[in-house]
């Protein structure tokens, strides 16, 4: 069977094989970023970049130390000295939010890197293999999908007295890879049967080359999407855990600020300057990440974008794409337009 395939393929390889230009490194780099080259993704990346900068420059940007207690200025609404007011201990909310960015960004990205690596390995291997090995990897993925993550994390986190950020990131990563793996497996399975992969196999290219050079470039968009998705999940997970109080409140992030605010009754006493900024920051980063993912989605599935745009363009010309009956328009108006 294999020999048959090989001779047969070898004969017509030059025509069967799709042209794969020997791209320069630059062009390759450019094409692997193509999925981000749309307005939605760029906006999302800009917002995300802003938060990353804030996290890096926290020491420079924050007007006060996040834990500097000022008993003379408790629960102050925003003022010139304290742009976002103060907490019940007189701490500066703005400084807390700025320093809090660090924990969020670090944990979000660490967790997502871990989760994505696992997802790629499990997903691609499960998609490439056949038979029971593929099935059992898929079953493992589904088990991780079905077992509720947050309760598990709460229990695991409660076992540590003072879990460092790395451990939290690791737990979030270990429980968050399954979605990505599932999607990647499905895509790899469909790629495996494409001509160019079959050709590479028939050519006798080694497995690592087939996966590394032929498959991964075609999976980049999905890998990026699953990375972005895990960052979102990890950030929401971290802030939620911090709010619940499972994560010690002395490591500052937006969730812990909200934990304090909630515990001190800020929500019941309308101290909006205390609870609005961290929540809005989480929402802003969430919006940024989903914008990036929208962009990638539309790159992967152009129909998503073009359907809406086309419909709007048609509407401007007085046509309705949903009209089941072809419009009739006298030639004169069409010529005026043209």
């Amino acid at each position: 069977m294999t020999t048959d395939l090989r001779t047969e393929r070898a004969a017509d390889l030059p025509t069967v094989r799709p042209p794969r230009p020997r791209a320069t490194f630059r062009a390759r780099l450019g094409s692997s970023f193509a999925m981000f080259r749309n307005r939605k993704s760029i906006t999302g990346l800009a917002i995300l970049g802003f938060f990353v900068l804030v996290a890096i420059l926290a020491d420079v940007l924050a007007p006060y130390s996040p834990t500097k207690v000022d008993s003379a200025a408790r629960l102050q609404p925003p003022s010139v000295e304290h742009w976002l007011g103060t907490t019940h201990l007189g701490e500066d909310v703005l400084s807390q939010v700025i320093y809090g960015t660090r924990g969020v960004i670090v944990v979000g990205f660490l967790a997502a890197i871990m989760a994505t690596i696992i997802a790629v390995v499990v997903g691609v291997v499960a998609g490439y293999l056949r038979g029971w090995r593929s099935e059992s990897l898929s079953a493992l993925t589904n088990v991780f999908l079905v077992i509720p993550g947050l309760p598990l994390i709460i229990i695991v986190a409660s076992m540590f007295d003072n879990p460092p950020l790395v451990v939290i990131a690791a737990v979030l990563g270990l429980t968050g890879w399954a979605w990505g793996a599932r999607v990647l497996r499905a895509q790899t399975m469909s790629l495996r049967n494409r001509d160019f992969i079959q050709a590479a196999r028939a050519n006798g290219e080694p497995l690592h080359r087939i996966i590394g050079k032929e498959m991964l470039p075609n999976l980049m968009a999905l890998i990026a999407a699953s990375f972005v998705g895990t960052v979102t999940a990890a950030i929401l997970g971290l802030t939620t855990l911090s709010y619940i109080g499972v994560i010690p409140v002395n490591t500052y992030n937006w969730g812990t600020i909200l934990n304090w605010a909630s515990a001190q009754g800020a929500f019941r006493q309308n101290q909006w300057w205390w609870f609005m900024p961290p929540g809005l920051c989480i929402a802003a980063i969430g919006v940024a990440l989903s914008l990036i993912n929208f962009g990638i989605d539309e790159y992967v599935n152009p129909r998503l974008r073009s359907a809406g745009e086309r419909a709007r363009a048609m509407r401007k010309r007085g046509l309705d794409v949903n009209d089941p009956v072809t419009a009739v328009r006298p030639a004169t108006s069409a010529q005026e337009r043209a």
Partner: protein
Amino acid sequence: MTAVQPQMPTQDALEVGTTATTAVKGRSRIPWRFLAGRAAFYLFTLWAAITINFFLPRMMKGDAVSQYLSRNRNVSPEAADALRSLLGLDTDKALLHQYVDYWGLLLRGDLGVSLLHGLRPVTEVISQALPWTVGLVGFATLVSFAIGTIGGGIVGWRRGSRLDGLIPVTTFLATIPYFWLGLLAIAVFSVNLGWFPIGKAYGVGMRPEWTAEFIGQVIHHGTLPAVTIVIASLGGWMLGMRNMMLTVLDEDYVMVAQAKGLPNKRVLWRYAARNAVLPQIQSFALSIGFIVGGTIVMEMVFSYPGVGKLLLDATNAKDYALMQGVFLVITLSVLVANILADIAYAFLDPRTRQTEA
């Protein structure tokens, strides 16, 4: 991790879309192969969850658990023995022996006693909390799924209309952390406007009973949590369904349906939406675990007396037996919900009845 689910249901079509071209012999209507495959999967997951549960306390530092037991001397010797097995203090036995003992306890329905709740059996404590969670979260989730799917269907059908604006709005609401949305809702509607009570499932001093007054209280207390769950999770369903509709609307059978002179409504619901909903149900099944995560937060924010609150209280009090029990029950409920979603899927997609192992 709140009530948000990853937004990639379109990809599932890859796994669904295997259509056999050969004619089927025989007329068996019951998808045995499909059922067997799913049953094996659920049994495996159940085993995995129970095994995780077995190892969880064994990873903890032993003295924490000994301390836990020594804190309460009035535990009867038998109950203490059971707790030792459950929590991994029976280290004098071989691990396999421990594992067998553990299974024996589970099969007898013995999850130990809860120290936090006056030594009452864990099963009893959980069975009091479970109906609240299942009732509120189940209801809110189904409502959200229904509104999101129907809405997404309509938005997808009327692509390019002003309805497209709904998608970014609902997506934004889905990116807000759920607990914050809940707290804001309390601040606005309970504290400032006074429309709804602050938290709890029913008023102080009420006793759970089937009276109109009590039911009214439950509805009044449950509205805010339910509405916030719906708002937070609507976006994902809507986006998923809309994206799926855009794909399905390009299919030949939709064009054929229009050529047949069927009214738009019939084409929309019986042809387009009927097919687009299938991946939705698959992602519903898979996101039940996420939804449960959101539940815990909801119950904390609204002090709702369900299993999520139970888990948090148990975690804070280091009531290990209760923690284990709650995790097991949550996993079981997720599995049951998954099975239900699977059955619904098998009913709605005739193709599962012969393909997909």
